[in-house]
């Protein structure tokens, strides 16, 4: 029997595997201001944990490879792809999903802007678009340049159609609702959108100093963000 051990597990090993199952880790996830103690299979993405363990199905699984942005959530106030984040590694971070954006006073201004501008068609990418837009507006307020910024050495951000398209290019919309998403994001940038519901949930405030965001001209343009 000695040479068979290389191929087949012993009875003891089989029993151990059966009782242990795949390696798991006990973590506490802070989601939308609530603490959730969970036993997580080490392989589980944050997206799957949100959807399957916490029944927060707002965050969507599009590609599951970080290419579409439908899974975008805010981690410590910053936008991130939850499909490429291991749930076990998210312990200690404040996670905000689309379900955590509205408060007693109403919808988050970005949510409201998407409604006002009809910035969706089927809606599948919308939760990711909204979370991404909130993170993006914070980045712009902090003065972060983008690939569309002419001189990266200059301080200050002027958001216009090109800037919004570039900064939102991590969120694909198969319906092609970009033509309404861009104005919605610009509305939110301009209006009362400087309020940030997600901040109230974040344990660590995003390291975003206050800087002004100016809105540029918004000439009508039907080009998609990923042209």
């Amino acid at each position, binding site marked *: 029997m000695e040479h068979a051990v290389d191929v087949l597990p012993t009875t003891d090993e089989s029993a151990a595997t059966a009782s242990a199952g795949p390696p798991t880790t006990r973590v506490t996830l802070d989601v939308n201001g609530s603490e959730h103690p969970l036993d997580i299979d080490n392989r589980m993405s944050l997206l799957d944990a949100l959807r399957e363990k916490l029944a927060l199905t707002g965050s969507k699984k599009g590609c599951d490879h970080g290419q579409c942005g439908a899974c975008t959530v805010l981690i410590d106030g910053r936008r991130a792809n939850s499909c490429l984040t291991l749930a076990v590694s998210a312990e200690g971070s404040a996670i905000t999903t689309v379900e955590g954006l509205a408060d007693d006073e109403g919808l988050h201004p970005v949510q409201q802007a998407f409604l006002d501008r009809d910035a969706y068609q089927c809606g599948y990418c919308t939760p990711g678009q909204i979370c*991404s837009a909130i993170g993006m507006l914070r980045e712009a307020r*902090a003065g972060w*340049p983008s*690939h569309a910024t002419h001189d990266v050495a200059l*301080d200050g951000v002027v958001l216009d159609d090109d800037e919004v398209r570039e900064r939102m290019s991590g969120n694909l919309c198969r319906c092609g609702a970009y033509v309404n998403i861009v104005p919605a994001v610009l509305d939110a940038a301009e209006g009362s959108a400087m309020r940030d519901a997600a901040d109230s949930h974040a344990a660590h405030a995003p390291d975003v100093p206050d800087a002004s965001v100016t809105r540029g001209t918004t000439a009508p343009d039907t080009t998609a963000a*990923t042209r």
Partner: protein
Amino acid sequence: MKTFEYERATSVRSALTSLGTPGTKPLAGGTNLVDLLKLGVERPDLLVDINRLDFGGIEPTDDGGLLIGAGVRNSDLAADLLVRTRFPLLAKALLSAASGQLRNMASTGGNLLQRTRCTYFMDTTKPCNKRDPGSGCPAIPGASRELGILGVSNDCIATHPGDMAVALTALGAIIHVDTLDGPTSFEIGEFYRLPGADPTRDTNLPAGALITAVEIPGLPFGAVSTYRKARDRASYAFGLVTVAAALDVEDGIVRDVRIALGGVSHKPWRASIAEESLRGKLVTARSFEAAADAELAAATPTEQNAFKVALAKRMLVGTLHELAGGHE
């Protein structure tokens, strides 16, 4: 996905101790590693999460350069005013890469170690000498449009997919690493390697080592620099050919120049031949074209990616013209 154990490193030392066991991988931003876990390309037994370790931020150095902690996120590096003013090519390279979400996640150290996006490497049902040594390279007679034209071998024509590393190559960055035997460092040109007969290794990083920082030496004309990227869509796509360049011109003469090409080789390609060709030359279209031709003379493209030779030349010449603006 294969199962794996998970632990959070509490110190660089503890991470190095864990990484001493074969089958262990460090987890930083995860933007490439988690994807490769899902695809079955990476199959570690243990992941050591180094995200909570403090590798330091972005510090100016005495020689006018910068020291960047390995954990600094791509988005923070691109947004840093010292980076944007001293080395705009680096900020631009970072901003041309991936998406806002991914840049928030990706770390400096992890980004240096991202794997090729060759479709055969990413598909475990296909042979690939990089993933499965000796199994062959179907890319060479196959879908090679995105793959290498310089420094390729008969075993692998994969390209390094990064943008940040191309800018860092032009800048001659130093990669600082730590090992259980103590710290060491690599000039970035010596860090990355060509595939040769062993494409499994992308870099000369010793087994079990951890990148701790990236140092950019001071470069006074670093402020006159840029990064250009040609890709199949205007945003959120890997480069077909990219150019990172910095140019120092005085009285119409090229005093010094730094050039690196991306999307053309297994490593970010320092265009040393073009640089040498340009030093001391008049700033003219003819000298720019001659430099590009000299660099690309060694190109060995496939039928599918032969366009990259012409594209690289135009990109390089166009970038130099842009940087020389006003001196011609």
